[in-house]
């Protein structure tokens, strides 16, 4: 099966290539990539049929005129909920939602039931994903058995089975000695330790960001410091051990400052944030909106500005979704009982494009943070349009406007605070392993 993508504006940060050109895909691999007009000035907006009849008749032509062509996006923080919580999401529905959102590779967190703290669970996930998944699924294994924070899980064996990173996400590793050991031990297997930074003695019972708003809503708050104390601790441990640390879902100004300083000192740390941390403040919870209840919580304007600054200067390397689907019934409850989480795969890219429109990032920088940067951290051969790589490609329309309609989400999780928002810029076609998944 041959596919040719023509007239699109190709942007591949991994090779520092951009311009209008063509890509030829054969048997699921990128066979050719030619830029006809590097960094072309104007691009025509309408879609014209410029099919060159001289092309081979066994090639499917995709006319990407007026659209961008980039490597398929990589999301290194997704909760697929399978095994154990299939009523919230399954590998099948989660990967379908990923494709809709423009992602061709996703990493799933281990807080399933049973926890992915053993090679057998890793094997199950990989097998299920191969059978039913719509995109690539790379499991993240647990750091500790049962994610209890007490004993290290079999990191080496799990890596062999297919885990690309390790995290107790959902939980922090409260015990500093265990975190130290994890960072040291992981060096043998060259895998990153992804840390969910939260001091649960400070955040205990907390539901939203601590401040005047939480006070006037009568909701127990989680102070910024609950995140920052653990960020700092983990940075010091990374420095002590030389292990590879990746900080998950950064949400506060203080965290960005700590990470910036650590990087300047040469500590081996990378960091990610999520679209809701640069798109919404704590005001989204007014009216007790459980769809805005997330951990870490939505913060203040000041924190949003700092997150954008950190994205701009490279302190934050990756934009991930922390896709956390929940069943409708679970979010339709007393605020304090509703689970934390936002279903983010289907809105992430559009929200991230806002950063380009606001001048925070160039389009190239944005694509970097969602393709080659996570690929490097995970040490995988993806996020690139290099000749010979698997044909994982996203075609998107920068101008397409649409209403977010949670009811129509492909994910089982309809829990989004962005319901009803008008977003601009959306995936139009996602190609995985050379197979087209049309989305318009």
């Amino acid at each position: 099966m041959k596919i040719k993508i023509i007239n699109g504006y190709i942007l591949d940060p991994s090779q520092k290539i951009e311009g209008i050109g063509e890509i030829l895909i054969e048997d699921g691999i990128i066979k050719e990539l030619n830029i006809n007009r590097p960094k072309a000035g104007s691009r025509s907006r309408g879609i014209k049929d410029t099919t060159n009849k001289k092309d081979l008749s066994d090639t499917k032509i995709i006319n990407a005129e007026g659209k961008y062509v980039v490597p398929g996006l990589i999301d290194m923080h997704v909760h697929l909920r399978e095994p154990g919580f299939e009523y919230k999401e399954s590998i099948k529905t989660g990967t379908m939602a990923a494709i809709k959102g423009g992602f061709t590779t996703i990493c799933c967190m281990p807080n399933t039931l049973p926890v992915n703290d053993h090679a057998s669970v890793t094997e199950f996930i990989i097998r299920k994903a191969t059978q039913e998944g719509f995109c690539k699924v790379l499991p993240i294994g647990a750091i500790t058995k049962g994610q209890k924070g007490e004993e290290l899980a079999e990191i080496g064996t799990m890596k062999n089975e297919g885990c690309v990173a390790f995290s107790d996400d959902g939980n922090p590793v409260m015990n500093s000695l265990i975190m130290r050991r994890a960072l040291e031990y992981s060096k043998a297997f060259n895998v990153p330790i992804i840390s969910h930074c939260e001091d649960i003695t400070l955040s205990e019972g907390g539901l939203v960001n601590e401040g005047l708003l939480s006070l006037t809503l009568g909701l127990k708050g989680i102070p910024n410091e609950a995140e920052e104390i653990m960020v700092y601790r983990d940075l010091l441990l990374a420095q002590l051990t030389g292990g590879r640390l990746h900080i998950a879902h950064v949400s506060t100004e203080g965290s960005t400052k700590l990470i910036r300083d650590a990087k300047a000192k040469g500590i081996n740390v990378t960091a990610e944030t999520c679209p809701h941390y640069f798109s919404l403040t704590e005001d989204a919870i007014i009216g007790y909106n459980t769809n805005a209840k997330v951990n870490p919580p939505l913060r203040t304007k000041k924190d949003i500005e700092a997150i954008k600054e950190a994205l701009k200067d490279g302190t934050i390397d990756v934009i991930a979704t922390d896709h956390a689907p929940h069943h409708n019934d679970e979010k339709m409850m007393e605020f304090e009982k509703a689970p934390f989480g936002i279903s983010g795969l289907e809105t992430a890219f559009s929200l991230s494009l806002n950063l380009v429109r606001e001048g925070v990032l160039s389009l190239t920088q944005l694509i970097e943070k969602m393709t080659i940067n996570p690929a490097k951290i995970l040490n995988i051969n993806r996020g690139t349009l290099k000749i010979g790589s698997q044909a994982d490609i996203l075609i998107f329309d920068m101008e397409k406007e649409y209403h977010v309609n949670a009811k129509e989400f492909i994910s089982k999780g309809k829990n989004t605070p962005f319901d009803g928002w008008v977003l601009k810029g959306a995936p139009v076609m996602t190609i995985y392993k050379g197979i087209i998944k049309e989305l318009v």
Partner: protein
Amino acid sequence: MLTSKDLLGIKELTSEEINFILDTASGFKDILGRDIKKVPTLRGKTTVNLFFEPSTRTRTSFELAAKRLSTDVINFSVTTSSVVKGESLIDTAMTVQALGADFIIIRHSASGVPHLLAKKLKASIINAGDGINEHPTQALLDAFTIKEKKQEIKGLEVAIVGDIVHSRVAKSNIYCLTKLGAKVRLVGPPTLIPKEFKDLGVDIHHNMEEGLKGVDVLMMLRIQMERQGKGFFPSTDEYSKNWGLTPDRLAIAKNDVIVMHPGPMNRGIEISSEIADGPKSVILDQVTNGIAVRMAVMYLLAGVKR
């Protein structure tokens, strides 16, 4: 003149609406002084008391108010219901609506529950206390009582003493009194008074003697044993020594100060018995006024166009 079918909190009311409720309550207080303490105003309507937290005085007060307006009253107490069997909050509420409730008086340990019900149900939802958020009818009856004794609320020096952070009564009172123009100050240990309250325009004192100077109205709060987490203060003994209301401390306030308490009291801990039973205490007036104020709230909500 009320714009919403529900009473969820003082935050949602304007000062005009608050005064309208208080004026209406005066009319109802007259009824309570008569031989026949009943009016046919809301005849045929159904009131459901949906209390997920234990309460005697508030529930009884609402029950009396509802009956005096001639509504039919059902008491739905959580321990005797299917909630114990694991029924979700929404299912319980929809069942109550299907029974034909016109008014649902809800008390729940989770903040925001009345707001959730107000969105889902057609009945008028009255918040009788949600978590550590608000207890609006308590603040309204407190304001009514103050107005009765002091004529004007504007410019009064009001001190609220005790466990502010866990007290929905304190919060509703802070919102209500500041909206009506009183000067509010909070007195208590720093662990129980978050500094963010300063942003609401109130003063904060940690020294009781300082805090009581020149006070016209003194509101004492119950030390909530059941809401304490860890480390807020070392012992009730130490609390009482530093922030308990004794006759000596009461003398620091103005001569004509009135002493209020939402009840129930921990006699000897936050307030001494002789003050609770003394001439400056208006605690029992608060109870009487509570019925009139709750009648006013129900009457006015019934008149709001759906």
